[in-house]
């Protein structure tokens, strides 16, 4: 049974609670064991890396050090892409400049040694063994559901930092998961285009424009829904979709489920337990298509 340290990140406790619910439910059904990192702190996100380089490394390093205290764990996952890259950045930077390790550890109570490695969250579902297992567990195939897989930026870019095998321009790991579920992943060009991230707060018109581009291209590509892998992207596309529609005088009503919610549906888990009601855009047509 695969066992990982889990870094939920701040959004999975609130705004992206459905990502948390579905991750937990799906992991349970697939026999994946997650151990939450005890006393985890915020990774610092872009606020830290825009402010101070060392701060942006020390905050995630403290989490990795805490994960090292979990017995029998060698890998940690962060479902949020924006968190993921902060941990990957620690590994990348320390790998490049060994002297950084001492600098970082002078700020921490327990030292970070690098014993626990960050693993892309998508990868623990899209690796060949797990993909085969998921396929074997599908009881309600998502037949006919056209899914635009949206990876966002920070699981795949830049590849030398995130150390994900997937293509930064045309990633396929989530598409492969969707195929395993019986859905139809769409070839579309906006898989890794930016949603605007925190410009939702700082320059709303930029965020609205970028989200409109993503929603429009997904719709034009024939998508029934956009599957998300990052809580920040998901919130911009889902919660703020109403602002996009108002701004551009359009009606998308495009459901933005997390990919874990779709896995859960296909393997027959209860839609309520997967948090579908938490989505802002009603996912009714997605649920109807699979008879859930």
């Amino acid at each position: 049974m695969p066992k990982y340290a889990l870094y939920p990140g701040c959004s999975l406790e609130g705004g992206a609670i459905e990502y948390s619910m579905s991750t937990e439910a799906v992991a349970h059904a697939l026999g994946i064991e997650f151990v939450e990192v005890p006393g985890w702190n915020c990774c610092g996100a872009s606020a830290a890396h825009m402010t101070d380089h060392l701060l942006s490394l020390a905050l995630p390093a403290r989490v990795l050090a805490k994960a090292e205290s979990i017995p029998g764990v060698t890998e940690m996952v962060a479902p949020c892409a924006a968190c993921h890259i902060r941990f990957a950045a620690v590994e990348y930077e320390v790998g490049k400049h060994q002297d950084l390790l001492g600098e970082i550890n002078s700020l921490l109570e327990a030292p970070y040694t690098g014993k626990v490695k960050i693993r892309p969250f998508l990868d623990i579902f899209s690796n060949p063994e797990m993909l085969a297992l998921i396929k074997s567990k599908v009881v309600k195939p998502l037949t006919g559901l056209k899914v635009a897989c949206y990876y966002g930026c920070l699981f795949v870019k830049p590849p030398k930092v995130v150390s994900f095998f997937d293509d930064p321009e045309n990633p396929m790991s989530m598409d492969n998961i969707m195929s395993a579920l019986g859905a139809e992943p769409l070839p579309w060009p906006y898989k890794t285009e930016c949603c605007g991230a925190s410009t939702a707060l700082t320059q709303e018109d930029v965020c609205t424009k970028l989200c409109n581009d993503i929603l429009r291209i997904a719709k034009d590509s024939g998508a029934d829904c956009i599957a998300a892998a990052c809580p920040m992207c998901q919130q911009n596309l889902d919660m703020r979709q109403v602002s996009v529609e108002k701004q551009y005088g359009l009606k998308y009503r495009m459901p933005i489920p997390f990919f874990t919610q779709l896995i859960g549906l296909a393997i027959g888990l209860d839609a309520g337990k997967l948090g579908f009601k938490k989505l802002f855009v009603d996912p009714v047509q997605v649920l109807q298509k699979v008879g859930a």
Partner: protein
Amino acid sequence: MGELDLTHALEKNRSFVDAVNEATGCDIRQCYQCAKCSGGCPGAYAMDYLPNQIIRMLMLGMVEDVLKSKTIWVCMSCNTCTTRCVRDIDIAAVMDDLRKEAIRHGYTEHARNVIACNNSFLWTVRTWGRLFDAGMLMMFNMDTGNPMKDMQFALPMMMKGKSPIIPIPHAIKGAKEVKKIFKKIKQEGK
């Protein structure tokens, strides 16, 4: 822009370019202006100078124009430029460094919202160890003089159980350790 003595400009600005290279771990002099960074930049349409122009301007000594630009505050750190750069320049890291330099030099005309966002975010992390989003949004809205920003989402967030009815921050176990990280970094003046 008037006439420019290129040799002189390149020489004069060696130290700033060197400092950017040092901070970002890449060599921006490798840039040959293919402009792939700008072609793929999702924020380019809202910038006053394109990312490739910023790199060239640094070389030409237009440091002040760069640090006063909108561009560095529009950049969303999506890393598309860094991913695509054929000269292995970490343009997103360059933008990060330029933002820090701009703040250091007091060029914050276009930075008000971004600074307010980062400060309110980090204030909650420093205080409780994790992001306290209601507190962050409140402080951000006050700082930016826009108290009603995003308030239309507050009620639906509560109804969906995504935010508590009365938001109360909870400190993590070991919040003091996090506080200490912030304090030590401030002391070291980094």
